[in-house]
């Protein structure tokens, strides 16, 4: 894998070469028409950007030339100098020098000396005549012979990559179909070809997915400014530490979580971290620590927002949840921390005012949750009162392919994304009891409610589910335990089919309003298979539980 340095250098090169080409174009325009305002403005802007980029990369000499030229173009723009006479030659020499310097950066060579040029530029800025010798003319001719260069990088619209990914998705579906057919027909030649097709389309799929990956840094690097601004408004001292900018993730996933992450970071500074005074009183260092980090864990990318602030007051959240009628006082008393924190992600659940400790933490957290749900991601919370809070976004690396478990109900397959599945159980009737009209089993010393998937999907009306009856439980029950927002739910299915990677297609209109399904996928057999949306199923169960 490329190092970050290399990647930045390539990006710098691509941009710099593009700037250089534009500069040459605008200079020619300016030579024809010395009063061309737009060309002048453009040159000023290009010089400014190149200067900033070069300085950020540590190419000071390059930045210096760009800086001088920027100053000079500023003067021309303000009509203090005119684009005429010896100035033209110096400017052309300057842009040519930029070209050779950029090429030197690309070839990893030392930058050519530009002191004579810089002196001339200085003279022009001061309003003196430049010192020119004839050699430079020759240089310029050499330049014009070398100018034709194409960048090694291609800018591409994300839309085009999306389209490519969709096509690959289709291809993978057909490939699986051909594979199935080949196995059924049992023709060796066909099988060999199908296997070859399998490998190629696999490679193609990963290449396309790879082309969509960007470093998490492109998003994280926007945060120092955000943190500085919010901290300034709140009058807090915050030190931001970032790590894992190199971790690769699909560009669209990063796009989707941008707002969520912004929300978490803002919340961490304005509500998670205490004021300097409060921190000193609590015996902490006056400067609040905020950490933004990315790391990979198996196939997932984790992005963490950690603060060493006041932490979540679990008891306050518990009281608020009862107040809001989200749970009964009796039930609330038995919930563990994680179950209580899950209330923070209920829509409109705000801790503002009532509990200053974590005021505002609930505002918009449901939005964070929704963004993650739409990706099939998860949100984890860790918090300790007085010590700090960590929000972890668990994200898929790529949106294209997801692992899923296929289950069968009424002879139809349904896919459940693995991200939300905990375990599968085969339960004897003796392991199932009825509590409050709901089937319940014990799993990891926790009682997990069970519900037949058939009932959730096909029972009509908005009324509660029928009361469960122990006598209806005959023979072993196949149970898929799913997990959403730290709530476990056992789905009773007819049988388990298999685990496989699926390409999820969104449901098209008009069916996209049914939120129980995250989409559909086509199985190798050509069969249409609905992909269950575990968050929506869980919500449906909670609304309908008797």
């Amino acid at each position, binding site marked *: 894998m490329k190092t970050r340095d290399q990647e930045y250098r390539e990006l710098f090169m691509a941009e710099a070469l593009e700037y250089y080409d534009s500069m040459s174009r605008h200079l020619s325009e300016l030579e024809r028409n010395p009063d061309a305002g737009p060309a002048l403005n453009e040159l000023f802007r290009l010089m400014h950007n190149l200067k900033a980029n070069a300085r950020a990369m540590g190419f000071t000499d390059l930045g210096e030339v760009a800086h001088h030229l920027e100053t000079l173009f500023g003067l021309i723009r303000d009509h203090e100098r005119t684009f005429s006479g010896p100035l033209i030659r110096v400017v052309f020499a300057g842009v040519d020098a930029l070209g050779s310097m950029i090429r030197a950066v690309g070839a990893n060579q030392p930058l050519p000396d530009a002191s004579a040029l810089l002196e001339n530029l200085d003279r022009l800025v001061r309003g003196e005549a430049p010192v020119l010798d004839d050699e430079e003319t020759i240089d310029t001719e050499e330049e014009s012979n070398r100018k034709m260069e194409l960048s090694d990088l291609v800018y591409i619209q994300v839309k085009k990559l999306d389209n490519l990914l969709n096509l690959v998705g289709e291809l993978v579906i057909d490939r699986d179909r051909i594979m199935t057919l080949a196995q059924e027909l049992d023709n060796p030649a066909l099988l060999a070809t199908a296997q070859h097709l399998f490998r190629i389309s696999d490679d193609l799929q990963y290449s396309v997915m790879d082309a969509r990956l960007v470093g998490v840094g492109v998003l994280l690097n926007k945060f120092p400014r955000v943190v500085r601004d919010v901290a300034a408004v709140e009058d807090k001292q915050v030190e931001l530490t970032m790590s894992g900018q190199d971790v690769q993730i699909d560009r669209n996933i990063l796009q989707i979580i941008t707002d969520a992450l912004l929300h978490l970071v803002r919340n961490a500074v304005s509500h998670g971290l205490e004021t300097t005074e409060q921190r000193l009183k609590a015996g902490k260092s006056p400067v609040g620590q905020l950490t933004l980090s990315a790391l990979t864990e198996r196939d997932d990318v984790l992005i963490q927002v950690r603060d060493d602030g006041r932490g979540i007051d679990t008891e306050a959240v518990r009281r608020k949840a009862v107040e809001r009628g989200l749970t009964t006082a009796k039930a609330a008393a038995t919930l563990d921390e994680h179950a209580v924190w899950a209330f923070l992600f209920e829509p409109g659940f705000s801790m503002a005012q009532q509990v200053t400790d974590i005021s505002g933490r609930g505002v918009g957290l449901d939005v964070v949750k929704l963004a993650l749900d739409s990706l099939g991601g998860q949100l984890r919370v860790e918090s300790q009162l007085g010590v700090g809070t960590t929000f972890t976004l668990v994200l898929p690396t790529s949106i294209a392919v997801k692992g899923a478990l296929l289950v069968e109900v009424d002879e139809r397959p349904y896919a459940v994304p693995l991200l939300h599945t905990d375990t599968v159980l085969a339960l004897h009737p003796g392991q199932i009891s009825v509590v409050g009209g709901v089937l319940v089993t014990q799993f990891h010393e926790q009682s997990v409610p069970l519900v037949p998937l058939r009932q959730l999907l096909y029972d009509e009306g908005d009324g509660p589910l029928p009361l469960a009856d122990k006598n209806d439980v005959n023979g072993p029950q196949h149970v898929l335990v799913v997990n959403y927002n730290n709530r476990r739910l056992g789905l009773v299915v007819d049988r388990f089919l298999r685990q496989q990677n699926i390409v999820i297609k969104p*449901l*098209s209109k*008009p*069916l996209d309003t049914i939120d129980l399904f995250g989409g559909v996928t086509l199985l190798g057999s050509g*069969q249409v298979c609905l992909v269950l949306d575990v968050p929506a199923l869980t919500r449906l169960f909670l609304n309908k539980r008797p």
Partner: protein
Amino acid sequence: MAEIELAAPAPKSERAKPAELVQLIVFRLGDEDYGIRIEQVKEVTVTPEVARMPKTPPFIKGIANLRGDIIAIIDLEERFRLRPAGRPLPERSYTVAVEAADYTLGLMVREVPRPFTLPLSQIEPAPEFVQDSSTRDKYLEGIAKLPEGGIIIVLDMRKLLTPSEVMRLPGKGASS
């Protein structure tokens, strides 16, 4: 196919030219002939395997895979309550894929749909008397009287296919 724009030229100017011909795809619902303008039809095919879709009105038979597109399959007989009692859909049915502005829907029909060409002037705007017969009159473009007798009820797919119309349960909101 996808380029076919459903927003056809303004009907008024079409009516001004009596010689203009209209091509319809005609199919039977209940005991009546229904037609859709051919430019609103994407393709006609034997109904593929339909996967039942929970939480949808009963006239949505489910979803099917039509050349990689997942489309909803709709039973208009059930939607318009035209199915004579005791006559279930046959084992082999046909699907007319019609295109709305940004998605495709399948209409399930019992017999092979057939093309039919007639002068536009033969299509009369829907008369008053059908208005209380069922909900379908809202979706009519008009009624074509055939010289040899019989009528074809011409549906306007653009009105039928708005998502809110498709999802509306039969009988509910019919007066709105």
